[in-house]
């Protein structure tokens, strides 16, 4: 068994000249707060049985998607795995449609057919949540291929957990992406655990960024507890992709403050309560808010007002979901094929005969 490595994560210290982009900073903090409150509301709804299935929360990791997606431009694409509510919000999807999807309602972004793990918005170029570890990476490669094929100025941003990096799909995709210089930004959200398995027990090489070197691909390590660092590193990678120089692998070092899914306790078998409490001292939202206060960008009062606003948005989203209708049973056979079943021969279960 691999020996446990020293704590790899520096305490978050927001970097960069924040005052230069006052609005961006406020916007990013607001996004992170919204993600946090939205998911806290999600957890409540799950606890009383309003939401079913697997439900993986992003609490603790907000800085990653926030900073990285903030670095994108209109027309760029985002795709991720199943821990995806924050990415969906950050891509500008309506919180009501996200919550309604969690509730399995007809008004949900996937019409109640996807649930927590499978949200999509073609309108927002949000290419979804995917449930098979590593399965989304080749798909993202395909999107990057399309961008190059059509000569577009877009970037494809794909997220994965660190555990996905061990899958063959990751390695095959990196090779082709680098070989063909595709406009792909790969972001590994290293929250240190794949379910109950610590990264040092799953990978022969601790340093994920180094894996890119096998494919002659540039890489970077970003502080996943700091939205500004995420923004800076992703922006660089996106610029490189846009100018035709190809893909970048970014390792974002972060931490999940909650269990793997709603059915997994916060601590216990694979990490202690103390571990989690210690990591929580690096809460990306609190640290960033303090930093902005010090810089005179956002006062305590304004922060409280912002918090009240995003709580209300989350509450409204839940209310919208609550008030929405369930999908009609007739929807069962809709959207399985793109073409309509003109002669009644597409479906094979003969239930309706």
């Amino acid at each position, binding site marked *: 068994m691999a020996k446990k490595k020293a704590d790899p994560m520096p305490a978050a210290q927001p970097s960069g000249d924040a005052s230069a982009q006052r609005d961006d900073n406020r916007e990013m903090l607001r996004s992170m707060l919204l993600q946090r409150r939205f998911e806290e509301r999600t957890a409540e709804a799950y606890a009383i049985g309003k939401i079913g299935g697997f439900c993986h929360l992003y609490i603790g990791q907000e800085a990653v998607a926030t900073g990285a997606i903030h670095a994108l431009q209109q027309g760029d694409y985002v795709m991720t795995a199943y821990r995806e509510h924050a990415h969906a919000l950050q891509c500008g999807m309506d919180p009501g449609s996200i919550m309604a999807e969690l509730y399995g309602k007809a008004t949900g972004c996937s019409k*109640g057919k996807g*649930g927590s793990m499978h949200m999509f918005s073609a309108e927002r170029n949000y290419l979804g949540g995917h449930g098979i570890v590593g399965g989304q990476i080749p798909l993202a490669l395909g999107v990057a291929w399309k961008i190059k094929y059509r000569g577009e100025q877009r970037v494809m941003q794909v997220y994965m957990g660190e555990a996905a990096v*061990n899958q063959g799909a990751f390695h095959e995709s990196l090779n082709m992406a680098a070989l063909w210089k595709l406009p792909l930004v790969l972001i590994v959200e290293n929250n240190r655990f*794949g379910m109950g398995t610590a990264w040092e027990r799953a990978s022969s090489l601790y340093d994920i960024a180094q894996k890119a070197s096998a494919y002659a691909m540039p890489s970077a390590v970003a502080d996943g507890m700091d939205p500004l660092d995420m923004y800076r590193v992703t922006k660089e990678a996106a610029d490189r992709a846009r100018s035709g120089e190809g893909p970048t692998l970014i390792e974002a070092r972060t931490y999940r403050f909650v269990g793997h899914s709603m059915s997994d306790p916060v601590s216990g078998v694979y990490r202690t309560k103390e571990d989690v409490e210690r990591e929580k001292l690096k809460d990306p939202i609190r640290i960033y808010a303090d930093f902005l206060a010090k810089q005179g960008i956002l006062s305590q009062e304004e922060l409280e007002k912002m918090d009240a606003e995003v709580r209300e948005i989350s509450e409204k989203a839940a209310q919208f979901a609550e008030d929405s209708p369930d999908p009609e049973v007739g929807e069962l056979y809709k959207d399985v094929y793109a073409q309509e079943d003109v002669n009644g021969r597409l479906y094979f279960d003969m239930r309706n005969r």
Partner: protein
Amino acid sequence: MAVITYREALNQALAEEMERDPDVFLMGEEVGVYNGAYKVSKGLLDRFGEMRVVDTPITELGFTGLGVGAAMTGLRPVIEFMTYNFSLLALDQVVHSAAKLLSMSGGQFKIPITFRGPTGAALQLAAQHSQALEAMYAHFPGMKIVVPGTPADAKGLLKAAIRDDDPVAVFEGEMLYNLKGEVPEDDDFVIPLGVAEVKREGRDVSIITHGKMVHVALQAAAQLEKDGVSAEVLDLRSLRPLDVDAILATVAKTNRVVLVEEGWAFGGITATVAALIQEEAFDHLDAPILRVTQADVPMPYAKGLEKAAKPSVELVVEKVNRVLYR
């Protein structure tokens, strides 16, 4: 006999076989420190150590291939798929290597490997996490497939699978793990592969099924009894080898058949069994064979849609009434 859960029965089977044969080891995601995603391997790491209860990275193709290679050269691996959904990533190693090596090598290399894990829909897990894939595995010659529906069958069939010299895939019902039942404590309690069991005797109609659907069939039979219909429930237990004699016997007895499976109809287990019955027992049939399967759609997330997509007791009752022309 002790009354234990399906989960505990599988755990006992693993522990007993590992105790009995030092070549048996368990490998998969979260099987060790985490005690198994569904807790089937609880306590085994403490008992057998980390060379025999091995946590792997999330690399289905890699660790499955590793298992096949180890089996080729003398070990008896048990490979746990966290769920069979993820085994699709490993299918190349299962189909092209495990199932075919004995034949391709002219009988030189036996592959005594067991694949196991949960299958089927649970509660609102949506399209990528709710599938019954046993029909696909059963498609390949060289594979053996068992689908236990009760705790006793779970123990007896898993033990038989581990002792078998061929690749055996054991499909455990994701919703059955907490099911309780009587299970023999005998260390040598094995249920031979390829032996079906009549789970309920009946005269008027045969409901032939396997796995989790055995319980749907039994509920339907209980309901039908109130209407004066005596339904026999035959649990196939093994899909490969298939107990053809038991199938033909029940058809000869009741002359009417409803087939039930959790998976899709197209190319399904029920398709194979229906073909077999009409080829070998056509003269015994008093009505066309009807089937109950999952709706021909990827499993939706929403509760109501999911319910509508799954095979149900009501559908089974309806089909039984139809083969009885009622």
